[in-house]
């Protein structure tokens, strides 16, 4: 389905995650971040978001371990940057799919 985010029409799923990562831009990221209660996006946020988008494009699985060990940011920092659920929030802001289980 469509949603208007920051003046752009994007395709999203029922939970508001972008289904087409190429539709993303930084204004969309900022708008989603505000919705998710994540403060204004600083350079460290954007470093994580770039990393996530690269990993997604390369087809790599997104896990806290890979993020924590990426050298981009530590696991503790991830929780500080994206309080309440780094995986689900960072991926939404980055315009990629939420990491999910099989069910």
């Amino acid at each position, binding site marked *: 389905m469509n949603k208007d985010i920051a003046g752009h029409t994007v395709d999203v*799923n*029922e*939970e508001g995650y972008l289904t087409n990562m190429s539709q993303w831009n930084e204004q969309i990221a900022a708008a989603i971040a505000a919705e998710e209660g994540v403060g204004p996006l600083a350079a460290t946020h954007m470093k994580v978001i770039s990393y996530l988008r690269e990993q997604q494009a390369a087809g790599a*699985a997104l*896990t*806290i*371990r*890979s993020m924590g*060990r990426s050298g981009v940011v530590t*696991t*503790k920092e*991830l*929780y*500080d940057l994206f*309080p*309440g*659920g*780094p*995986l*689900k929030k960072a991926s939404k802001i980055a315009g990629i799919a*939420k*990491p*999910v*289980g*099989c*069910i």
Partner: protein
Amino acid sequence: MSKHLLILGGGTAGTIMANQLRRRLCKTEWRMTVVDRSSKHLYQPGFLFLPFGIYQEKDIIRETRDFIPGGVDFLQAEVGKITPEAHAVTLQDGREVSYDLLIIATGCRTAPEETAGMLGPKWRDNIHDFYTLDGARALREKLASWPGGKLVVHINEMPIKCPVAPLEFSFLADTFFTGRRMRDKVSITYVTPLSGAFTKPKAAKKLSHLLADKGIELVTDFTAEKIDQERNVLACYDGREVPYDLLVTTPTNMGDAAIQRSGLGDDLNFIATNKHTLQSLKHPDLFVIGDATNLPASKAGSVAHFESETLADNVLRHIEGEPLKEEFDGHSNCFIESGNGKALLIDFNYEYEPHEGAFPFFFGPMKLLQESRLNHWGKHAFRWIYWHILLRALPLPGISRNKKPPVTA
């Protein structure tokens, strides 16, 4: 001089491949060997039932050799290092085994050492796991006499094999303590690093009520930083803490240590594998199946079964110099115990999430994504199917390697 097809791992995937390929490869042209550290084959889905006394050990332990077909050698040995460039495997005892084709089916193991505070004096005292035979046994002893308190069921990080088993454990615990008339003395909390107990929309909509119905509390987005054994507390990186009296945790799952020693895996020791052909992304004469791969499919026996059918065809094509089939679709099919004599059945693949409907035929008899007593019967009957049909790679009528798309009404 015959060629050699070597299979590392005599678990579900390795045993199925031995059976699949022995009957299709010419015996004079191809010698086959399966290597495993153990002479025993364990029915891993049974570990869930052992702590509650629902299964006995004799139900879930057999001799590996009984399932390796004639014409395949079984070598009980520990794998040291795999060197695909040299088409050789060195065993821990120093022996070198060379091969023409290699199938890695070394599975995945639990790694409690990966979480600070998991091992230590309280491990197998009030911190347990049921993902190994020893763990399931120790938990059985604990549950038999546990007077009650805070039971916390926990997943440390994803991926894990049999991803629904911790949830099943929670459901079965609710039934177990109810049966013992002590459910009011037990609180059950399910702690997950994911954003819900059910993360796929259809399943979440249909099944989320189960936790509330059974009085199971849910803590989500929780990445365990450490376990504080002195205070009996599970601590998250963001400062949240979950206190427990009995912690049933699922440690980090990693590929076999031999994969790490060989430099063949990612940071969890899973091997980069083509998700449709099952060929290694790096080495053409190497194929990978089951829990050892890095595929975005579940780590489950049913997945190994569905993979095996495509893999067998592709091994033959590879031998003939033909292009491989990009056929495997991530198909997985799992029974999920929901307690009180009922179970769910889910069927999904890379493309389709678990959905409602009937299985395996349009008329059923199993219901998908819905609790039923028939599904529960099916889960238990499956053990017979596993030993007698699945492991021997005999056909399962109506059950195809690729998932049938959901029927839209």
